[in-house]
């Protein structure tokens, strides 16, 4: 790592950047314009957030608060857990533990930092990680391995069995930092009694782990309250996701990012409820008027991102979609599979219910909720089995009138690269043009944004989509 980077605390840098950004829209237009002059590198991000009206401002405030919580955890006597995006943080919040979600922080840093998080990614390799491991963890994780972030107290991940590469990164971090580690492990099946029981047992053990490492007992009243808030938030997300079915989609591409970033990082928090409510109000107004959420107001194409988005510097990907008139109908990242959601009803047996009547019921609820978050649901078993990735993709693409499907991931994703070719052939056989992006969603050095854009343009042109 370059020595000058080691002079700065990464959490502090990001926290202060976001705090300042969140304050900008509160000023006059002249003040905002002046402030933008001091943002040479992430002008595009700032523009996207500021131009999204109140939802953009709420998103900035939420992200700023997220970092503030990390930065003040120590002085408030709270423990910090390093965790993954496909794990609901509600259970940590119930124990007053502050989560540091590597993937969310990597995406955020990648969007706003001039050189992305390349230095931090490389630092992970400097200290031993393989260079082929997933960049989504390596980004922010590098800062923590270099002790340039707040000190992690313990590590919890829930990806063994669904994404061993992800689990391996967390296991590496725990070993390298010599911190306690707990892994929730997933069998390949979902929804059967045996795997449900396994989840329940696994979560009980995790709670024991958390109690041991925090010195606190689980506060079930607080957990119940949090689950109820999360459920309300999921309902709001469900309403927003239903808007993806409208033609044109009334929301800008940024909204989907806001939905899942908030859920991964801040579910159960008021700031996230405010963001969702603001987005919903904005989207409803647009929908009533039959307006597209795109800047041009004209929707030319509807694409479903069957895996993740592309988090390059300055939100290039979102700007590209907006400029080309492409509305995304979401990705797997925002889908939660609460049994009342529209798509869950299309995939029989895929959903979960909420029950806070007893500690056992709450643990089961959290376990079932987590078992249906991105990755741990869609790509845990063979992609072509019941309720797995293929069925889910086809159901959502059909419901949302997608005209094409785009796969984007990272070269570190063994899980999806292990079968994306036959998966895409199956989708093509169902009539959907599919584009497999060969870039790294978090690392522009793998394929430059210019090349990625050219390849996307080529796909849309050759397949007669645009």
């Amino acid at each position, binding site marked *: 790592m370059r020595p000058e980077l080691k002079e700065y605390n990464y959490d502090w840098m990001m926290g202060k950047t976001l705090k300042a950004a969140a304050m900008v829209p509160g000023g006059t237009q002249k003040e905002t314009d002046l402030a933008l002059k001091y943002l040479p590198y992430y002008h595009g991000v700032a523009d996207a957030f500021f131009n999204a009206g109140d939802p953009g401002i709420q998103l900035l405030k939420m992200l700023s608060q997220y970092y503030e919580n990390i930065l003040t955890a120590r002085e408030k006597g709270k423990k910090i857990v390093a965790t993954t995006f496909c794990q609901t943080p509600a259970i940590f919040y119930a124990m007053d533990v502050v989560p540091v979600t590597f993937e969310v922080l990597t995406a955020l840093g990648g969007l706003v930092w001039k050189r992305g998080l390349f230095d931090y990614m490389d630092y992970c390799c400097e*200290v*031993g*990680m*393989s260079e*082929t*491991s*997933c960049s989504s963890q390596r980004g922010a994780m590098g800062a923590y391995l270099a002790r340039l972030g707040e000190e992690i107290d313990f590590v919890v991940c829930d990806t*063994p*069995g669904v*994404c*061993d*590469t992800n*689990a*391996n*990164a*967390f*296991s*590496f971090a*725990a*070993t*390298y930092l010599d911190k306690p*580690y*707990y*892994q929730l*492990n997933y*069998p*390949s*099946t979902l929804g059967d009694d*045996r795997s449900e029981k*396994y989840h329940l*047992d*696994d979560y009980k*053990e995790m709670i024991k782990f958390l109690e041991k490492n925090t010195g606190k007992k689980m506060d079930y009243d607080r957990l119940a309250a949090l689950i109820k808030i999360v459920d309300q938030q999921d309902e709001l997300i469900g309403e927003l996701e239903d808007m993806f079915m409208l033609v044109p989609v009334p929301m800008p591409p940024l909204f989907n990012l806001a939905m899942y970033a908030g859920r991964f990082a801040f579910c159960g928090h008021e700031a996230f409820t405010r963001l969702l409510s603001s987005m919903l109000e904005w989207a409803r107004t647009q929908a009533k008027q039959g307006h597209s959420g795109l800047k041009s107001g004209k929707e030319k194409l509807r694409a479903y991102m069957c895996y993740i988005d592309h988090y390059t510097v300055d939100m290039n990907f979102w700007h590209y979609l907006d400029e080309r008139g492409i509305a995304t109908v979401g990705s797997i990242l925002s889908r939660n599979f609460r049994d009342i959601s529209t798509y869950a009803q299309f995939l029989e047996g895929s959903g979960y219910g909420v029950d806070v009547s007893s500690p056992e019921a709450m643990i089961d609820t959290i376990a079932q909720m987590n078992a249906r978050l991105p990755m741990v649901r869609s790509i845990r078993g*063979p*992609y*072509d089995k019941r309720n797995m990735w293929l069925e889910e993709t086809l159901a959502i693409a059909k419901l949302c009138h997608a005209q094409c499907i785009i796969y984007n991931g990272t*070269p*570190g*994703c*063994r*899980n*999806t*690269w*292990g*079968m*994306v*070719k*036959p*998966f895409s*052939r199956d989708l093509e056989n169902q009539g959907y043009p599919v584009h497999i992006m*060969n870039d790294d969603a978090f690392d522009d050095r793998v394929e430059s944004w210019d090349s990625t854009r050219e390849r996307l343009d080529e796909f849309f042109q050759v397949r007669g989509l645009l």
Partner: protein
Amino acid sequence: MHFFYDAVTRIENHAITRWKQSGKKVVGYTCSYVPPEIFHAAGILPVRLRGIETDGMEIGDAYFGPFICSFPKCLLQQAGKGEFSFLDGVLIIPGCDAMRRLDECWRKAGEDHQGIVPTWFEYFDVPHKSEVHGMNWFVQEIRNLIERIERQFGVSVTGTALRESIREYNRGRRLLKTVETLRAEKNVRVSGTDVFSATIAGTVLPREEYTRQLEKWLEDLSGRDPLEGEKKRLMVIGSIADEIDLFQLIENGTDAVVVAENLCFGVRYEGNEIPVNGDPILSLARHYLETSVCPRMFGKYKQRLALLREKIERAGVEGVILQNIRFCDLHGSENGLFQRDLEAEGIPCLRLEREYGPLKETGRIKLRIDAFLEQIA
């Protein structure tokens, strides 16, 4: 030694051919977490699947994406070419992400290449933890596997038969332990290549025949003179490796001898016999799941490091080659931690990233090994 060498340098060796000719069944499996005793008890020959003899990758690459380890790709390539046509069944294990995706890729390749997917094509869901509920899951998984074998092949796997199979496999384990003791001697009398061949042979030969041959070979070894010249004593660890030529590359024409390894095809369970008393399924489950040596069992680095230290001390290891197949992040990253901790204890380490299969990059690897050997005083 020729017997073992012949057995491990071909996918379908003579013993497998003879077994098939006698009308008996063969099942292939993909990971060391499968208890082969179960198939043995059913009168079926369990064969650990290997990707050797690959001469192209057009089938492997057609289904797997580009960022995938070459081991499952080689397996798929050979399956697509019909090289596993002797199999009556296949058991896929989620050893890692790439290996579990062999399930879909093989099945999908079967849509384009007729007859490459055996009728019995099953999945064996090995958990990543051995704590209580993980063990319970694994025990149930073994019971389910037995039921599926019985149903498909019309056999009965009784407790008595399982105990007999465990006894037979234990005989081999005792013999391998003796081999390990021999190679730990100061004046080592057997090459790592020979030991590795003998070990891999245990995964592809009928067990009784293997045990007999191992006994004969041990008799021969005990009267053998030490290897000529002073040797630098190495250990090889890391990703899956079953290529004899990798060991030959390390030992031939150098002053190195591999005196220990920690590989899933190598001697990892030596001396660790399975109890024959009590519930044989529980005994098998404990042996295969609790003896955690693969980084797929996350969070157990310290146990694995302790195992390496013990081997290094016992065999007088002077240097460790930490190899990983490209895109094998589990071993690749753990090798980084091993390097940090072993070098801190004064043990030289060489991290070596490579491709699985025919050694096409011999020059580069040889150069690095030679340089490493020079480093070892």
